[in-house]
């Protein structure tokens, strides 16, 4: 297994792919950090909420609670420290897909499976190396964001909130999200071997699919008057991911653990089906 890990690691390290992805992730992280910092600045200095009188009291209470929650330092600090996550996860997903589909695209699957005929081992090796790569990417962005965030927050005259459990939890969940999306990416790549198709479908699902799926679920909920159905939006992977990592529990959102459970479920299912398919497939 050590041999396989070294081999899979070298595959990533000996092409341009790793620094292209690193640059892309760092670029998007810098961009989102700037946006998050602007947002945090306005939230931390937000005026008291003025609500129109005609809003029903229970709804007003929720809006007020939400408004206050967003204004708290912990939520903003967590948000700053995990900047770039949205695109970071997308890139991890894509990297996971490329690590698998590259083998078919460049026909290196032949030599890979000749060297390691037990295909389950090859998938396991790819999963492990991708999780490590995702953790590496996450650590790189987190270190940069925490440094930049700490500088920003001290400039705002606020505390760094680094000791807060909610912030620590957000950082850990961020790490978990990166790892799970890496697993998801490898599983996805084994499901759709065609590189271009896999990449396009994944990007579409990640960026647009979640809003379309949630819109459909909400529409059904409104039509059938079953408001509880809106809770099902958590079943959409990218929504689950957002739920899982939303810095602190915002009122009205499904619990974080549910998001984590859904996401892990998807990762396991994608990886499992992908491994089964890879075992049965003819390479040629």
């Amino acid at each position, binding site marked *: 297994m050590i041999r396989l890990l*070294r*081999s899979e690691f070298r595959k990533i390290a000996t092409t341009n792919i790793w620094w292209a992805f690193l640059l892309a992730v760092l670029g998007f992280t810098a961009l989102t950090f700037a946006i998050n910092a602007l947002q945090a600045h306005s939230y931390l200095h937000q005026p008291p909420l003025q609500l129109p009188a005609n809003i029903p009291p229970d709804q007003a209470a929720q809006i007020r609670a939400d408004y206050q929650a967003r204004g708290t330092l912990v939520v903003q600090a967590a948000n700053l420290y995990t900047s770039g996550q949205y695109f970071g996860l997308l890139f991890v997903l894509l990297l996971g897909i490329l690590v698998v589909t590259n083998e078919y695209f460049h026909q290196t699957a*032949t030599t890979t499976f*000749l060297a*390691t005929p037990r295909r389950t081992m090859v998938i396991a090796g790819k999963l492990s190396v991708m999780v490590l790569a995702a953790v590496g990417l996450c650590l790189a962005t987190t270190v940069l964001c925490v440094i930049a965030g700490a500088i920003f927050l001290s400039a705002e005259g606020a505390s760094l909130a680094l000791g807060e459990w909610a912030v620590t939890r957000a950082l850990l969940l961020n790490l978990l999200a990166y790892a799970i999306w890496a697993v998801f990416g490898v599983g996805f790549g084994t499901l759709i071997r065609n590189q271009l198709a896999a990449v396009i479908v994944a990007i579409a699902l990640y960026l647009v699919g979640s809003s379309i799926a949630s819109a459909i679920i909400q529409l059904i909920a409104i039509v059938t008057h079953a408001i509880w159905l809106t809770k099902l939006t958590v079943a959409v992977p990218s929504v689950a991911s957002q739920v899982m990592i939303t810095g602190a529990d915002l009122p009205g959102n499904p619990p974080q653990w549910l998001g984590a459970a859904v996401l892990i479920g998807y990762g396991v299912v994608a990886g499992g089906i992908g491994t089964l398919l890879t075992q049965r497939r003819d390479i*040629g």
Partner: protein
Amino acid sequence: MSDGQIVVRGLTKQFRTVRAVDDLSFTVAPGRVTGFLGPNGAGKTTTLRMILGLVRPTSGTATIGGQVYSDLAEPLRTVGAVLEASSFHRGRTGRNHLLVLCDAAGLPARRADEVLDLVGLAAAARRKVRGYSLGMKQRLGIAAALLGDPRVLILDEPANGLDPEGIRWMREVLRGYAQRGRTVLVSSHLLAEVQHLADDVVIIAAGRLVRQGAVAELTGEIAARRVRVRTPDPDRLLAALNGASAQRGEADLIHVTGLDTPAVFRAAVAAGIELHELTHEHADLEHVFLELTSGGAEIR
């Protein structure tokens, strides 16, 4: 030394509508070069891929030294294979491609440099495969196959893309390998190449075994006795050769089967017939091949 023997037993592969390989059985002996011949679409590549565990047989088995490929403890140190012409990431250097395999097989990085030297790619080792010619890629493929110094070599159309010098070089490598008691199985549609290279041949058509045997034996059998004669007086010669089966070729040419050259000469002299050419025809593998596969060679 049954160590590197390849044994194929009742191997069958049914793709959706095509039976690519149909109840195929043959053995490949160590210490010899075995040519694996067949018309395009005969199932050669599918068979080799089944031997290497890349394609799952519908039924039947293929073993190497008594073991199924996927059960080999050290696959790259047991079997070296060259399949399609380019199975390299274009953005990776030739040397790094080999190092990836060294890692997977637990071989030292030194082996990568040794085989690069051996195939004459040392100078291009640190260049990306993108810039390689077809011949260089073919050499890199052979380098990868030799990496683990395996007991068995399996090559699918290795001469493709090699220049004549490259083909001669490869022939020497493969012959040298067989002389050291190892097993070499080479598929090819270049019959002349196989005739010069192989000791044994396995001929298939339409997924079925047509013949297996030593090259000398097969060509000798078909050659029987064929004599080629040119004479300005073909009709009289045909009459003089009565009894022997003879065929008129173009103009003054006659092919005689069943007689040797002295017999034809004696008949001509006795009848006072002038001869312009009298040669013993060597049946080459191509004749054998066409004769054996005709009927089974249709494109499927």
